[in-house]
C-alpha cells in the first residue's frame, strides 16, 4: 500500500496471471464467464439507496427551489427563479435572515478552519515522535470527537454558563473578566463556538495528519540531515511537501464541516444574541422543516452550495501541483493511506 503501483496491482497484473495459460484476459474476467448482470446484482442494494437518497434529491431539490413549495398546502405553484430573486431582494422577508445566517457561517468558517488546520498539525507533529504512551496521548486528543454534538453542546453550555460555568470561574481565578456572556453576546459567542469546535474535532484532523506524516519515508529525513538541513528546513522541504496531498483533503473536509456547523449553534447559543449565531444550515432547516417554506429553503441551500463550490475550487487551485509532476488520484490516496 505504500506505493501507487501496489494499489493498482490487482487490476493491472491480472492478465499475466492467467492461470490456464490462454491468452491474457482482461483483468477480473473469470474463466467461468460470469453472467453479465452479476456485478450489477452486487451493486443493486447500494445503488437503490444511492439513487433514491442521493441522485434523486440532488435534482429534486432544484425542482423544489423553483416552486412555492409549502409542505402543508395542496398547491405548489411554479415560480421560476422567484425564490432565488427574493434572496437577493433586500425588501423580502427571507433575505435578511438568510444573509445574516450566511454571515454567521462565514464568520465561523473563517475563524475555525485555520485553527483546525494548524493546531491538529502541531499535535500530530508532537505525536509523530515515537515514545512510550504515545497511543494513550493520541487517544486523549481524539476522545472528544467520539462524543456527539448534542453531548458536547450540552456540556459546554454548562461550562460556559455566565454565572455558574467553570470557564468564567477559572478566568476569574486568573484575574480575567469573569462575567463574559459566552452564549448570549458577540463576539464572545463566536470565541465559544469556535473554541468548542476546536476542542471537539481537533483529534480528527490530527489522526489524519499523523497517518500522513508516518507515510513520509524516513530516508528523506536522513538525506536532509546528511545535507545539513535544520529542523525547520526539514519541516519546510520534507514534511510539508509530503503532506500536500492530504492537506487538500483535510482543508476541503474541514471547510465543508465548518460550513455545515449546526449543533453547536442550535444547543450552545440557540442562535443568540438575536439570530447572529444562527448558521446558514440552521436557517435552511428552520425555514424548510419548521416553517415548511421548502421552496425558499431549497433555494437557500443551492446558494450556500454555490459559495461552497467556489471556495472548494479556490482551495484546489491553491494546493495545486506547482511542478508538472502528475499525481494521480490513486497516488494521493496511497500517500494518505498511512499504511506500511
Amino acid at each position, binding site marked *: 500500500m505504500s506505493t501507487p503501483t501496489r494499489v493498482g496491482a490487482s487490476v493491472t497484473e491480472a492478465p499475466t496471471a492467467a492461470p490456464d495459460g490462454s491468452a491474457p484476459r482482461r483483468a477480473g474476467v473469470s474463466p467461468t464467464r460470469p453472467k453479465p448482470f452479476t456485478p450489477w446484482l452486487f451493486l443493486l442494494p447500494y445503488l437503490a439507496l444511492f439513487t433514491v437518497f*442521493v441522485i434523486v434529491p440532488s435534482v429534486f431539490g432544484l425542482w*423544489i427551489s423553483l416552486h412555492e413549495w409549502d409542505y402543508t398546502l395542496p398547491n405548489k405553484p411554479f415560480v421560476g427563479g422567484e425564490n432565488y430573486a427574493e434572496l437577493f431582494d433586500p425588501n423580502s422577508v427571507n433575505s435578511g435572515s438568510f444573509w445574516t445566517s450566511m454571515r454567521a457561517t462565514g464568520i465561523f468558517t473563517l475563524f475555525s478552519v485555520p485553527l483546525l488546520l494548524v493546531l491538529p498539525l502541531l499535535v500530530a507533529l508532537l505525536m509523530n515522535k515515537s515514545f512510550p504512551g504515545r497511543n494513550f496521548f493520541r487517544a486523549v486528543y481524539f476522545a472528544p470527537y467520539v462524543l456527539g454534538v448534542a453531548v458536547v453542546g450540552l456540556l459546554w453550555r454548562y*461550562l460556559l454558563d455566565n454565572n455558574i460555568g467553570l470557564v468564567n470561574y477559572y478566568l476569574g481565578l486568573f484575574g480575567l473578566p469573569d462575567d463574559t456572556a459566552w452564549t448570549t453576546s458577540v463576539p464572545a459567542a463566536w470565541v465559544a463556538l469556535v473554541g468548542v469546535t476546536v476542542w471537539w474535532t481537533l483529534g480528527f484532523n490530527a489522526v489524519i495528519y499523523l497517518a500522513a506524516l508516518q507515510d513520509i519515508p524516513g530516508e528523506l529525513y536522513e538525506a536532509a540531515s546528511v545535507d545539513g538541513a535544520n529542523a525547520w528546513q526539514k519541516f519546510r522541504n520534507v514534511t510539508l511537501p509530503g503532506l500536500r496531498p492530504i492537506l487538500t483533503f483535510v482543508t476541503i473536509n474541514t471547510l465543508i464541516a465548518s460550513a455545515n456547523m449546526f449543533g453547536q449553534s442550535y444547543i450552545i447559543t440557540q442562535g443568540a444574541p438575536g439570530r447572529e449565531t444562527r448558521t446558514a444550515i440552521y436557517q435552511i432547516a428552520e425555514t424548510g422543516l419548521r416553517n415548511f417554506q421548502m421552496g425558499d429553503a431549497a433555494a437557500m441551500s443551492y446558494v450556500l452550495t454555490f459559495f461552497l463550490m467556489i471556495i472548494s475550487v479556490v482551495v484546489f487551485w491553491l494546493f495545486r501541483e506547482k511542478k508538472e509532476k502528475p499525481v494521480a488520484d490513486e497516488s494521493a490516496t496511497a500517500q494518505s493511506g498511512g499504511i506500511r
Partner: protein
Amino acid sequence: MTALEQAAAPVAVPTSETRADAPRGRTRVWVVVVRYVLLGVLALIYLSPIIFMLVTSFKTRADAAGIPPNWIPDPFTTQAYEAILTASGTPVLLWFSNSLIAAVLHAVLVVVTASLAAYPLARMTFRGRGIVFSVIVATLLIPPVILIIPNYLIVGNLGWLNSLVAIIIPTAAGAFGVFFMRQFFLSLPAELEEAAIIDGANRWEIFLKIILPLSKPAMATLALLAFLTNWNDFLWPVYVLFSADVQTLPAGLSTLQSANAVRYDLLMAGAVIASVPVLLLFVFLQRFIIAGVSRSGLKG
C-alpha cells in the same frame, strides 16, 4: 491466521518505527519526567470537561449550580439519574434503545450494501463500471445541505417521517462506505481469487468464502464508524422525529435542555448516558476507530 493478519495490516494504525528520529544522546531522567508530567497535565486539562460532566451527573441540583465548582460531588448522589430515568415526557431509556436499534441496524445496512457494491467496483471488469464509480465519486462533492429538504419530502412520501426508519436508511446512501471497502478489496492479493476461479468457484462463492472472511477487520472498522456516526447524528433526527417516544438520545437530549434549562445535574446525567456507549467503544476498540479515521483520508 497469517492471511487474516495480512488482511488486517492495511487497516492497522501505522507505527513510526521506520521514521528516523534524529539520534539523540542519553536523555536525563528528569527530562523524561518533566516531559511526561507536562504531557499528563495537558491531557488532563484536555479531558477535564468530560470528567466534569461525569462528576456533575452525581451531584445534587444545588451542588451542580454551586460556586466555586466542586470536583468531587458533595454529597455523592445518583438522584439525577433516578430523576431523569423516571421523568415522564423525557423517556431517556426509550431514547437510549431507539438510538441503539437505529445505530446497529444502520451499521449493518452500511456494511452489507457497501461491501456488496465495493466488490465488483474493485474486482470485476464490466461495462459501466467507470461511469458508476465516477458518479459515486462526483456525489462526494455535493454538500449534504442540498439533500436535506428533498430527502425530507422523499422520506415523507415513503411514510417514514417520525419513525426510526428515517434515520436508519437514507443516511446509508453515503459514498464513504463504498470507498472504504473498495480501497480495502484493492489491497487484497488477486492470487487468492484466481486460485478459487481455477477451482470453478463463481463470484458469489468467492465473495462469501474468500473475500469476506479476509475483510473482517475492515468491515468491523466500517461498522464502528457507521455506528458512531448514526449514534451521534443530530440535525436529521431533530427534524424528522417529532414525538418524544421515537426520538434518539441526541435529539431527545436537546428537548431535555429546553425543559430543564437550569437543571445541569439532569442534563449532565443525560449527557453521560449518551456518552457511555461511545466512550466504551472508543476505549476498547480505539485501534479500529483511529485506523478508520486515518483511512478516511482516502475519501478524497
